Protein backbone atom coordinates (compact mmCIF):
# COMPACT_ATOMS: atom_id res chain seq x y z
CA UNK A 1 0.00 0.00 0.00
CA UNK A 2 2.83 2.36 0.94
CA UNK A 3 4.48 1.59 -2.37
CA UNK A 4 1.28 2.43 -4.22
CA UNK A 5 1.03 5.78 -2.43
CA UNK A 6 4.69 6.47 -3.17
CA UNK A 7 4.18 5.66 -6.83
CA UNK A 8 1.16 7.96 -7.02
CA UNK A 9 3.05 10.87 -5.45
CA UNK A 10 6.19 10.30 -7.51
CA UNK A 11 4.38 10.31 -10.86
CA UNK A 12 2.51 13.58 -10.32
CA UNK A 13 5.00 15.88 -12.06
CA UNK A 14 5.81 13.52 -14.96
CA UNK A 15 2.06 13.12 -15.57
CA UNK A 16 1.70 16.89 -15.53
CA UNK A 17 4.31 17.01 -18.28
CA UNK A 18 2.42 14.48 -20.39
CA UNK A 19 -0.69 16.65 -20.18
CA UNK A 20 1.19 19.71 -21.47
CA UNK A 21 2.25 18.90 -25.04
CA UNK A 22 3.93 22.29 -25.66
CA UNK A 23 6.21 21.68 -22.69
CA UNK A 24 7.09 18.18 -23.88
CA UNK A 25 7.75 19.44 -27.40
CA UNK A 26 9.75 22.34 -26.01
CA UNK A 27 11.83 19.98 -23.88
CA UNK A 28 12.66 17.80 -26.88
CA UNK A 29 13.49 20.68 -29.19
CA UNK A 30 15.37 22.54 -26.49
CA UNK A 31 17.51 19.56 -25.59
CA UNK A 32 18.32 18.77 -29.23
CA UNK A 33 19.11 22.35 -30.19
CA UNK A 34 21.05 23.02 -27.00
CA UNK A 35 23.23 19.93 -27.51
CA UNK A 36 23.98 20.95 -31.11
CA UNK A 37 24.71 24.56 -30.14
CA UNK A 38 26.92 23.68 -27.19
CA UNK A 39 28.87 21.07 -29.17
CA UNK A 40 29.32 23.55 -32.03
CA UNK A 41 30.44 26.33 -29.67
CA UNK A 42 33.13 24.28 -27.95
CA UNK A 43 34.31 22.72 -31.22
CA UNK A 44 34.57 26.23 -32.68
CA UNK A 45 36.42 27.62 -29.67
CA UNK A 46 39.00 24.83 -29.81
CA UNK A 47 39.72 25.33 -33.51
CA UNK A 48 42.77 27.48 -32.80
CA UNK A 49 43.64 26.13 -29.36
CA UNK A 50 45.07 22.82 -28.17
CA UNK A 51 44.65 21.70 -24.61
CA UNK A 52 43.74 24.44 -22.18
CA UNK A 53 43.22 24.16 -18.40
CA UNK A 54 44.06 20.46 -18.76
CA UNK A 55 41.07 19.85 -21.04
CA UNK A 56 41.27 19.05 -24.74
CA UNK A 57 38.55 19.49 -27.35
CA UNK A 58 36.91 16.07 -26.96
CA UNK A 59 36.83 16.41 -23.19
CA UNK A 60 35.38 19.92 -23.34
CA UNK A 61 32.65 18.97 -25.82
CA UNK A 62 31.77 15.82 -23.87
CA UNK A 63 31.65 17.78 -20.61
CA UNK A 64 29.49 20.56 -22.08
CA UNK A 65 27.02 18.21 -23.79
CA UNK A 66 26.66 16.04 -20.70
CA UNK A 67 26.13 19.15 -18.57
CA UNK A 68 23.21 20.08 -20.85
CA UNK A 69 21.79 16.56 -20.55
CA UNK A 70 22.26 16.51 -16.77
CA UNK A 71 20.40 19.81 -16.46
CA UNK A 72 17.28 17.90 -17.58
CA UNK A 73 17.35 15.85 -14.39
CA UNK A 74 15.74 18.52 -12.22
CA UNK A 75 14.13 20.81 -14.74
CA UNK A 76 10.48 19.88 -14.52
CA UNK A 77 8.17 22.79 -14.17
CA UNK A 78 6.45 22.37 -10.80
CA UNK A 79 5.67 26.07 -11.01
CA UNK A 80 3.09 25.45 -13.73
CA UNK A 81 1.43 22.88 -11.44
CA UNK A 82 1.42 25.42 -8.58
CA UNK A 83 3.15 22.91 -6.36
CA UNK A 84 6.35 24.70 -5.41
CA UNK A 85 6.95 25.56 -1.76
CA UNK A 86 7.24 29.20 -2.80
CA UNK A 87 3.73 29.17 -4.31
CA UNK A 88 2.23 27.24 -1.38
CA UNK A 89 3.67 29.78 1.03
CA UNK A 90 2.35 32.63 -1.11
CA UNK A 91 -1.18 31.23 -1.37
CA UNK A 92 -1.22 29.77 2.15
CA UNK A 93 -1.87 26.26 0.82
CA UNK A 94 1.28 24.88 2.45
CA UNK A 95 -0.93 23.96 5.38
CA UNK A 96 -2.45 21.10 3.34
CA UNK A 97 0.96 19.45 3.24
CA UNK A 98 0.64 19.12 7.00
CA UNK A 99 -2.97 17.89 7.03
CA UNK A 100 -2.46 14.88 4.76
CA UNK A 101 -1.74 11.34 5.97
CA UNK A 102 1.70 11.70 4.35
CA UNK A 103 4.53 13.62 6.00
CA UNK A 104 5.50 16.73 3.98
CA UNK A 105 9.16 15.73 3.86
CA UNK A 106 8.16 12.34 2.47
CA UNK A 107 5.84 13.90 -0.10
CA UNK A 108 8.57 16.33 -1.16
CA UNK A 109 11.12 13.51 -1.46
CA UNK A 110 8.75 11.36 -3.52
CA UNK A 111 7.92 14.22 -5.87
CA UNK A 112 11.63 14.92 -6.34
CA UNK A 113 12.34 11.23 -6.92
CA UNK A 114 9.67 11.06 -9.63
CA UNK A 115 11.06 14.19 -11.27
CA UNK A 116 14.62 12.97 -11.20
CA UNK A 117 13.75 9.54 -12.59
CA UNK A 118 11.70 11.13 -15.37
CA UNK A 119 14.50 13.59 -16.10
CA UNK A 120 17.00 10.75 -16.02
CA UNK A 121 15.07 8.95 -18.78
CA UNK A 122 15.40 12.08 -20.96
CA UNK A 123 19.09 12.48 -20.11
CA UNK A 124 19.84 8.81 -20.73
CA UNK A 125 18.10 8.88 -24.13
CA UNK A 126 20.05 12.03 -25.03
CA UNK A 127 23.29 10.45 -23.86
CA UNK A 128 22.79 7.28 -25.93
CA UNK A 129 21.94 9.31 -29.04
CA UNK A 130 24.90 11.66 -28.49
CA UNK A 131 27.19 8.68 -27.99
CA UNK A 132 25.89 7.02 -31.18
CA UNK A 133 26.36 10.27 -33.11
CA UNK A 134 29.92 10.62 -31.80
CA UNK A 135 29.17 13.94 -30.10
CA UNK A 136 30.31 12.65 -26.71
CA UNK A 137 33.16 10.27 -26.04
CA UNK A 138 32.53 6.96 -24.28
CA UNK A 139 34.04 6.55 -20.79
CA UNK A 140 37.72 5.68 -20.75
CA UNK A 141 37.19 2.30 -19.09
CA UNK A 142 34.61 0.23 -17.24
CA UNK A 143 36.07 1.47 -13.96
CA UNK A 144 35.57 5.11 -15.06
CA UNK A 145 31.97 4.32 -16.04
CA UNK A 146 31.32 2.71 -12.66
CA UNK A 147 32.87 5.53 -10.67
CA UNK A 148 30.98 8.08 -12.80
CA UNK A 149 27.65 6.32 -12.15
CA UNK A 150 28.28 6.32 -8.40
CA UNK A 151 29.44 9.92 -8.43
CA UNK A 152 26.40 10.97 -10.50
CA UNK A 153 24.09 9.29 -8.00
CA UNK A 154 25.78 11.07 -5.08
CA UNK A 155 25.71 14.31 -7.08
CA UNK A 156 21.96 13.99 -7.61
CA UNK A 157 21.49 13.44 -3.89
CA UNK A 158 23.52 16.58 -3.15
CA UNK A 159 21.47 18.46 -5.77
CA UNK A 160 18.23 17.23 -4.19
CA UNK A 161 19.31 18.51 -0.79
CA UNK A 162 20.58 21.84 -2.18
CA UNK A 163 17.25 22.42 -3.93
CA UNK A 164 15.44 21.35 -0.76
CA UNK A 165 17.36 23.90 1.34
CA UNK A 166 16.45 26.59 -1.21
CA UNK A 167 12.77 25.59 -0.93
CA UNK A 168 12.92 25.37 2.86
CA UNK A 169 14.07 28.99 3.06
CA UNK A 170 10.57 29.88 1.83
CA UNK A 171 9.22 28.99 5.27
CA UNK A 172 11.12 31.90 6.80
CA UNK A 173 10.85 34.56 4.12
CA UNK A 174 7.51 35.74 2.79
CA UNK A 175 8.88 37.16 -0.45
CA UNK A 176 12.01 35.37 -1.56
CA UNK A 177 11.77 34.94 -5.32
CA UNK A 178 14.99 36.91 -5.78
CA UNK A 179 16.87 34.97 -3.09
CA UNK A 180 15.85 31.74 -4.77
CA UNK A 181 16.98 32.96 -8.18
CA UNK A 182 20.34 33.95 -6.71
CA UNK A 183 20.76 30.55 -5.09
CA UNK A 184 19.78 28.74 -8.29
CA UNK A 185 22.20 30.92 -10.21
CA UNK A 186 24.97 30.11 -7.69
CA UNK A 187 24.13 26.43 -8.07
CA UNK A 188 24.47 26.65 -11.87
CA UNK A 189 27.65 28.72 -11.85
CA UNK A 190 29.48 26.88 -9.06
CA UNK A 191 28.52 23.42 -10.27
CA UNK A 192 30.03 24.05 -13.70
CA UNK A 193 26.82 24.17 -15.77
CA UNK A 194 27.83 27.37 -17.58
CA UNK A 195 31.43 26.31 -18.19
CA UNK A 196 33.75 23.68 -16.70
CA UNK A 197 35.14 25.00 -13.42
CA UNK A 198 38.66 24.16 -14.65
CA UNK A 199 38.53 27.18 -16.97
CA UNK A 200 38.01 29.56 -14.05
CA UNK A 201 40.79 31.29 -12.08
CA UNK A 202 42.46 29.34 -9.24
CA UNK A 203 40.78 31.38 -6.50
CA UNK A 204 37.38 30.51 -7.98
CA UNK A 205 38.19 26.79 -8.05
CA UNK A 206 39.44 26.95 -4.44
CA UNK A 207 36.28 28.79 -3.36
CA UNK A 208 33.97 26.29 -5.03
CA UNK A 209 35.83 23.36 -3.46
CA UNK A 210 34.51 24.50 -0.05
CA UNK A 211 30.90 24.56 -1.29
CA UNK A 212 28.53 21.69 -2.09
CA UNK A 213 27.63 22.87 -5.60
CA UNK A 214 30.61 21.40 -7.45
CA UNK A 215 29.71 17.98 -6.02
CA UNK A 216 26.46 18.00 -7.99
CA UNK A 217 27.84 18.13 -11.54
CA UNK A 218 31.47 19.17 -11.88
CA UNK A 219 32.86 16.15 -10.00
CA UNK A 220 30.90 13.42 -11.86
CA UNK A 221 31.57 14.98 -15.27
CA UNK A 222 35.25 15.61 -14.52
CA UNK A 223 35.57 11.95 -13.54
CA UNK A 224 33.82 10.92 -16.77
CA UNK A 225 36.03 12.97 -19.09
CA UNK A 226 39.17 12.03 -17.18
CA UNK A 227 40.00 15.50 -15.86
CA UNK A 228 39.91 13.96 -12.38
CA UNK A 229 41.98 10.75 -12.51
CA UNK A 230 40.66 7.52 -11.02
CA UNK A 231 43.35 7.70 -8.33
CA UNK A 232 41.55 10.79 -6.91
CA UNK A 233 38.08 9.28 -7.25
CA UNK A 234 37.91 7.83 -3.73
CA UNK A 235 38.58 11.23 -2.19
CA UNK A 236 36.05 12.98 -4.43
CA UNK A 237 33.39 10.36 -3.74
CA UNK A 238 33.96 10.64 0.01
CA UNK A 239 33.60 14.45 -0.21
CA UNK A 240 30.30 13.98 -2.07
CA UNK A 241 29.11 11.46 0.53
CA UNK A 242 30.12 13.90 3.26
CA UNK A 243 27.99 16.61 1.68
CA UNK A 244 25.04 14.23 1.42
CA UNK A 245 25.31 13.45 5.13
CA UNK A 246 25.73 17.08 6.24
CA UNK A 247 22.87 18.33 4.06
CA UNK A 248 20.59 15.43 5.08
CA UNK A 249 21.03 16.33 8.75
CA UNK A 250 20.65 20.05 8.06
CA UNK A 251 17.44 19.67 6.03
CA UNK A 252 16.03 17.29 8.63
CA UNK A 253 16.60 20.02 11.21
CA UNK A 254 15.00 22.63 8.93
CA UNK A 255 11.90 20.45 8.34
CA UNK A 256 11.36 20.28 12.11
CA UNK A 257 11.81 24.03 12.55
CA UNK A 258 9.57 24.74 9.54
CA UNK A 259 6.75 22.61 10.99
CA UNK A 260 6.67 24.89 14.03
CA UNK A 261 5.93 27.87 11.79
CA UNK A 262 2.82 26.37 10.16
CA UNK A 263 -0.47 27.55 11.61
CA UNK A 264 -3.66 25.73 10.57
CA UNK A 265 -7.12 27.30 10.60
CA UNK A 266 -5.96 30.36 12.53
CA UNK A 267 -4.08 28.32 15.17
Amino acid at each position, binding site marked *: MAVLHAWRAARVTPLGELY*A*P*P*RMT*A*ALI*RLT*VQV*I*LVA*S*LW*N*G*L*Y*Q*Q*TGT*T*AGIDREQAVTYAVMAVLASRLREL*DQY*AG*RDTVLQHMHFGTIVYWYLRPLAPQRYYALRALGEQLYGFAWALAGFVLSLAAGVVQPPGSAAVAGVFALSLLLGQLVLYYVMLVIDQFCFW*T*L*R*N*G*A*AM*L*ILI*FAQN*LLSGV*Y*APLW*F*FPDWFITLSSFLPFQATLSVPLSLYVGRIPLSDAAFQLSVQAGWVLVLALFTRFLWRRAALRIVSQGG
Partner: protein
Amino acid sequence: MNAVRIAWRITRLNFRAQLEYRSEFLLMIGIGAIWQVSVIVFATVLLTRFTGMGGWDSSEVLLIPATRMLAHGIFVLFLGRMHGIGQIIQEGMIDTYLVRPMPVFRQVQLSVFPTNAIGDLTVAIGLMVGALSRSDLDWTAGRITYLVVCVLGGMFLEAALFTAVACASLRFPAADYWGRWLEELLGTFGSYPLNVLPRAVSGFLTFGLPLAFVAYFPAAVLTGHGHDTGVPYWLAAASPLLGLVAFLGARLLWRWSLGHYTGVNG
Protein backbone atom coordinates in the same frame (compact mmCIF):
# COMPACT_ATOMS: atom_id res chain seq x y z
CA MET B 1 -0.55 62.87 -22.60
CA ASN B 2 -3.14 61.59 -20.17
CA ALA B 3 -2.00 58.02 -20.87
CA VAL B 4 1.61 58.96 -20.03
CA ARG B 5 0.46 60.59 -16.79
CA ILE B 6 -1.49 57.48 -15.77
CA ALA B 7 1.41 55.19 -16.68
CA TRP B 8 3.77 57.35 -14.63
CA ARG B 9 1.44 57.29 -11.60
CA ILE B 10 1.05 53.50 -11.79
CA THR B 11 4.82 53.09 -12.11
CA ARG B 12 5.37 55.24 -9.01
CA LEU B 13 2.85 53.14 -7.09
CA ASN B 14 4.45 49.92 -8.32
CA PHE B 15 7.85 51.20 -7.25
CA ARG B 16 6.54 51.99 -3.76
CA ALA B 17 4.96 48.54 -3.63
CA GLN B 18 8.34 47.00 -4.40
CA LEU B 19 9.84 48.98 -1.52
CA GLU B 20 7.44 47.29 0.90
CA TYR B 21 9.83 44.34 1.25
CA ARG B 22 13.21 46.07 1.46
CA SER B 23 15.43 42.99 1.46
CA GLU B 24 13.50 41.52 -1.48
CA PHE B 25 13.88 44.87 -3.27
CA LEU B 26 17.66 44.84 -2.79
CA LEU B 27 17.90 41.18 -3.73
CA MET B 28 15.95 41.86 -6.93
CA ILE B 29 18.51 44.49 -7.87
CA GLY B 30 21.14 41.91 -6.96
CA ILE B 31 19.66 39.21 -9.18
CA GLY B 32 19.60 41.58 -12.15
CA ALA B 33 23.25 42.44 -11.56
CA ILE B 34 24.29 38.85 -10.89
CA TRP B 35 22.58 37.54 -14.02
CA GLN B 36 24.50 40.07 -16.07
CA VAL B 37 27.74 39.41 -14.20
CA SER B 38 27.39 35.71 -15.07
CA VAL B 39 27.45 36.65 -18.74
CA ILE B 40 30.58 38.73 -18.12
CA VAL B 41 32.24 35.92 -16.15
CA PHE B 42 31.52 33.42 -18.91
CA ALA B 43 32.74 35.85 -21.57
CA THR B 44 35.89 36.66 -19.58
CA VAL B 45 36.68 32.98 -19.08
CA LEU B 46 36.29 32.30 -22.79
CA LEU B 47 38.26 35.39 -23.82
CA THR B 48 41.09 34.46 -21.46
CA ARG B 49 41.26 30.83 -22.52
CA PHE B 50 40.50 31.26 -26.22
CA THR B 51 42.17 34.40 -27.53
CA GLY B 52 41.41 35.70 -31.01
CA MET B 53 37.87 34.32 -31.00
CA GLY B 54 36.65 34.18 -34.61
CA GLY B 55 39.34 36.64 -35.71
CA TRP B 56 38.13 39.33 -33.29
CA ASP B 57 40.39 40.73 -30.59
CA SER B 58 39.10 40.81 -27.02
CA SER B 59 38.22 44.54 -27.00
CA GLU B 60 36.09 44.03 -30.11
CA VAL B 61 34.39 40.94 -28.68
CA LEU B 62 33.58 42.89 -25.50
CA LEU B 63 31.44 45.28 -27.55
CA ILE B 64 29.03 42.41 -28.34
CA PRO B 65 27.99 41.54 -24.74
CA ALA B 66 28.02 45.25 -23.85
CA THR B 67 25.54 46.07 -26.63
CA ARG B 68 23.39 43.03 -25.91
CA MET B 69 23.28 43.61 -22.16
CA LEU B 70 22.44 47.28 -22.49
CA ALA B 71 19.66 46.44 -24.96
CA HIS B 72 18.45 43.73 -22.56
CA GLY B 73 18.50 46.10 -19.58
CA ILE B 74 16.38 48.69 -21.41
CA PHE B 75 14.07 45.92 -22.60
CA VAL B 76 13.60 44.68 -19.02
CA LEU B 77 12.86 48.22 -17.84
CA PHE B 78 10.29 49.16 -20.48
CA LEU B 79 8.92 46.02 -22.15
CA GLY B 80 10.16 43.09 -20.07
CA ARG B 81 6.84 41.99 -18.54
CA MET B 82 6.05 40.03 -21.71
CA HIS B 83 8.55 37.54 -20.31
CA GLY B 84 6.70 35.50 -17.71
CA ILE B 85 3.22 36.42 -18.90
CA GLY B 86 2.23 32.76 -18.47
CA GLN B 87 1.75 33.38 -14.77
CA ILE B 88 -0.60 36.32 -15.43
CA ILE B 89 -2.61 34.11 -17.80
CA GLN B 90 -2.60 31.12 -15.44
CA GLU B 91 -3.85 33.17 -12.53
CA GLY B 92 -6.67 34.55 -14.68
CA MET B 93 -5.50 38.15 -14.33
CA ILE B 94 -5.49 38.65 -18.07
CA ASP B 95 -9.30 38.27 -18.02
CA THR B 96 -9.44 41.26 -15.68
CA TYR B 97 -7.13 43.25 -17.94
CA LEU B 98 -9.48 42.66 -20.87
CA VAL B 99 -12.34 44.60 -19.28
CA ARG B 100 -10.31 47.60 -18.13
CA PRO B 101 -10.16 50.79 -20.20
CA MET B 102 -6.48 50.47 -21.05
CA PRO B 103 -4.69 48.38 -23.72
CA VAL B 104 -3.83 44.94 -22.32
CA PHE B 105 -0.23 45.20 -23.54
CA ARG B 106 0.26 48.38 -21.53
CA GLN B 107 -1.42 46.90 -18.47
CA VAL B 108 0.91 43.91 -18.60
CA GLN B 109 3.92 46.24 -18.77
CA LEU B 110 2.57 48.24 -15.84
CA SER B 111 1.68 45.18 -13.76
CA VAL B 112 4.86 45.35 -11.68
CA PHE B 113 7.94 47.54 -11.41
CA PRO B 114 10.97 45.65 -12.77
CA THR B 115 13.36 46.18 -9.88
CA ASN B 116 15.88 43.77 -11.40
CA ALA B 117 16.26 46.20 -14.33
CA ILE B 118 18.19 48.52 -11.98
CA GLY B 119 20.81 45.81 -11.48
CA ASP B 120 20.73 44.83 -15.15
CA LEU B 121 21.29 48.39 -16.33
CA THR B 122 23.96 49.19 -13.74
CA VAL B 123 26.14 46.28 -14.83
CA ALA B 124 25.35 46.82 -18.52
CA ILE B 125 26.34 50.51 -18.38
CA GLY B 126 29.51 49.57 -16.53
CA LEU B 127 30.40 46.99 -19.16
CA MET B 128 29.64 49.40 -22.01
CA VAL B 129 31.91 52.04 -20.45
CA GLY B 130 34.61 49.40 -20.06
CA ALA B 131 34.18 48.18 -23.64
CA LEU B 132 34.33 51.72 -25.06
CA SER B 133 37.38 52.66 -23.01
CA ARG B 134 39.23 49.54 -24.19
CA SER B 135 38.19 50.04 -27.80
CA ASP B 136 40.74 51.36 -30.33
CA LEU B 137 37.99 52.62 -32.62
CA ASP B 138 37.57 56.31 -33.42
CA TRP B 139 34.25 57.08 -31.73
CA THR B 140 32.89 59.72 -34.06
CA ALA B 141 29.41 61.20 -33.67
CA GLY B 142 28.18 58.94 -36.47
CA ARG B 143 29.51 55.80 -34.79
CA ILE B 144 28.07 56.76 -31.40
CA THR B 145 24.69 57.50 -32.98
CA TYR B 146 24.75 54.15 -34.76
CA LEU B 147 25.62 52.39 -31.47
CA VAL B 148 22.70 54.10 -29.68
CA VAL B 149 20.33 53.15 -32.51
CA CYS B 150 21.63 49.57 -32.41
CA VAL B 151 21.01 49.31 -28.66
CA LEU B 152 17.43 50.48 -29.21
CA GLY B 153 17.05 48.09 -32.16
CA GLY B 154 18.32 45.24 -29.98
CA MET B 155 15.76 46.16 -27.33
CA PHE B 156 12.95 46.08 -29.92
CA LEU B 157 14.12 42.77 -31.35
CA GLU B 158 14.26 41.16 -27.90
CA ALA B 159 10.82 42.60 -27.15
CA ALA B 160 9.53 41.17 -30.45
CA LEU B 161 10.82 37.69 -29.60
CA PHE B 162 9.29 37.70 -26.12
CA THR B 163 6.02 39.16 -27.42
CA ALA B 164 5.81 36.29 -29.92
CA VAL B 165 6.28 33.82 -27.04
CA ALA B 166 3.62 35.71 -25.06
CA CYS B 167 1.21 35.27 -27.99
CA ALA B 168 1.80 31.51 -27.81
CA SER B 169 1.22 31.67 -24.04
CA LEU B 170 -2.27 33.08 -24.64
CA ARG B 171 -3.12 29.76 -26.27
CA PHE B 172 -0.83 27.47 -24.20
CA PRO B 173 0.17 29.01 -20.84
CA ALA B 174 2.91 26.39 -20.56
CA ALA B 175 4.56 27.95 -23.63
CA ASP B 176 6.12 30.34 -21.15
CA TYR B 177 8.79 27.66 -20.91
CA TRP B 178 10.02 28.77 -24.34
CA GLY B 179 10.61 32.25 -22.92
CA ARG B 180 13.02 30.96 -20.30
CA TRP B 181 14.94 29.08 -22.96
CA LEU B 182 14.98 32.14 -25.19
CA GLU B 183 16.47 34.21 -22.38
CA GLU B 184 19.11 31.57 -21.78
CA LEU B 185 19.98 31.39 -25.50
CA LEU B 186 20.27 35.17 -25.74
CA GLY B 187 22.64 35.18 -22.76
CA THR B 188 24.73 32.25 -23.95
CA PHE B 189 24.96 32.72 -27.70
CA GLY B 190 24.12 36.39 -28.16
CA SER B 191 27.40 37.62 -26.72
CA TYR B 192 30.07 36.17 -29.02
CA PRO B 193 31.12 36.33 -32.67
CA LEU B 194 28.90 33.73 -34.27
CA ASN B 195 31.50 32.98 -36.95
CA VAL B 196 33.16 30.54 -34.51
CA LEU B 197 30.13 28.31 -35.06
CA PRO B 198 29.51 26.09 -38.12
CA ARG B 199 27.67 27.87 -40.93
CA ALA B 200 24.42 25.93 -40.39
CA VAL B 201 24.36 26.78 -36.70
CA SER B 202 25.19 30.46 -37.17
CA GLY B 203 22.57 30.50 -39.95
CA PHE B 204 20.00 29.16 -37.49
CA LEU B 205 20.94 31.89 -34.99
CA THR B 206 20.55 34.46 -37.77
CA PHE B 207 17.46 33.42 -39.71
CA GLY B 208 15.81 30.86 -37.42
CA LEU B 209 16.19 32.65 -34.13
CA PRO B 210 17.49 36.09 -35.13
CA LEU B 211 19.67 36.80 -32.11
CA ALA B 212 22.64 37.67 -34.36
CA PHE B 213 20.83 40.93 -35.14
CA VAL B 214 20.69 41.96 -31.46
CA ALA B 215 24.40 42.65 -30.97
CA TYR B 216 26.67 40.53 -33.16
CA PHE B 217 25.90 42.21 -36.50
CA PRO B 218 25.87 45.77 -35.07
CA ALA B 219 29.22 45.15 -33.35
CA ALA B 220 30.60 43.61 -36.55
CA VAL B 221 29.61 46.70 -38.54
CA LEU B 222 31.11 49.01 -35.91
CA THR B 223 34.41 47.11 -35.66
CA GLY B 224 34.93 46.58 -39.38
CA HIS B 225 34.01 42.87 -39.43
CA GLY B 226 30.74 43.59 -41.24
CA HIS B 227 31.83 41.82 -44.42
CA ASP B 228 32.76 38.58 -42.62
CA THR B 229 29.43 37.82 -41.00
CA GLY B 230 28.06 35.50 -43.65
CA VAL B 231 25.21 37.86 -44.58
CA PRO B 232 25.23 40.87 -46.96
CA TYR B 233 26.75 43.96 -45.36
CA TRP B 234 23.58 46.00 -45.83
CA LEU B 235 21.55 43.39 -43.95
CA ALA B 236 23.97 43.41 -41.01
CA ALA B 237 23.97 47.22 -41.01
CA ALA B 238 20.16 47.31 -41.06
CA SER B 239 19.90 45.33 -37.80
CA PRO B 240 18.27 48.14 -35.78
CA LEU B 241 15.63 48.64 -38.47
CA LEU B 242 14.91 44.94 -38.49
CA GLY B 243 14.42 45.07 -34.71
CA LEU B 244 11.83 47.83 -35.07
CA VAL B 245 10.00 46.04 -37.90
CA ALA B 246 10.00 42.78 -35.92
CA PHE B 247 8.52 44.56 -32.89
CA LEU B 248 5.76 46.15 -34.95
CA GLY B 249 5.02 42.74 -36.45
CA ALA B 250 4.96 41.18 -32.99
CA ARG B 251 2.49 43.82 -31.79
CA LEU B 252 0.17 42.96 -34.68
CA LEU B 253 0.50 39.29 -33.77
CA TRP B 254 -0.30 40.18 -30.14
CA ARG B 255 -3.42 42.05 -31.19
CA TRP B 256 -4.56 39.11 -33.32
CA SER B 257 -3.77 36.57 -30.56
CA LEU B 258 -5.59 38.60 -27.95
CA GLY B 259 -8.63 38.71 -30.23
CA HIS B 260 -8.62 34.91 -30.32
CA TYR B 261 -7.95 34.48 -26.59
CA THR B 262 -10.46 32.36 -24.70
CA GLY B 263 -10.48 32.49 -20.91
CA VAL B 264 -11.63 29.70 -18.63
CA ASN B 265 -15.16 31.08 -18.75
CA GLY B 266 -15.29 30.95 -22.54
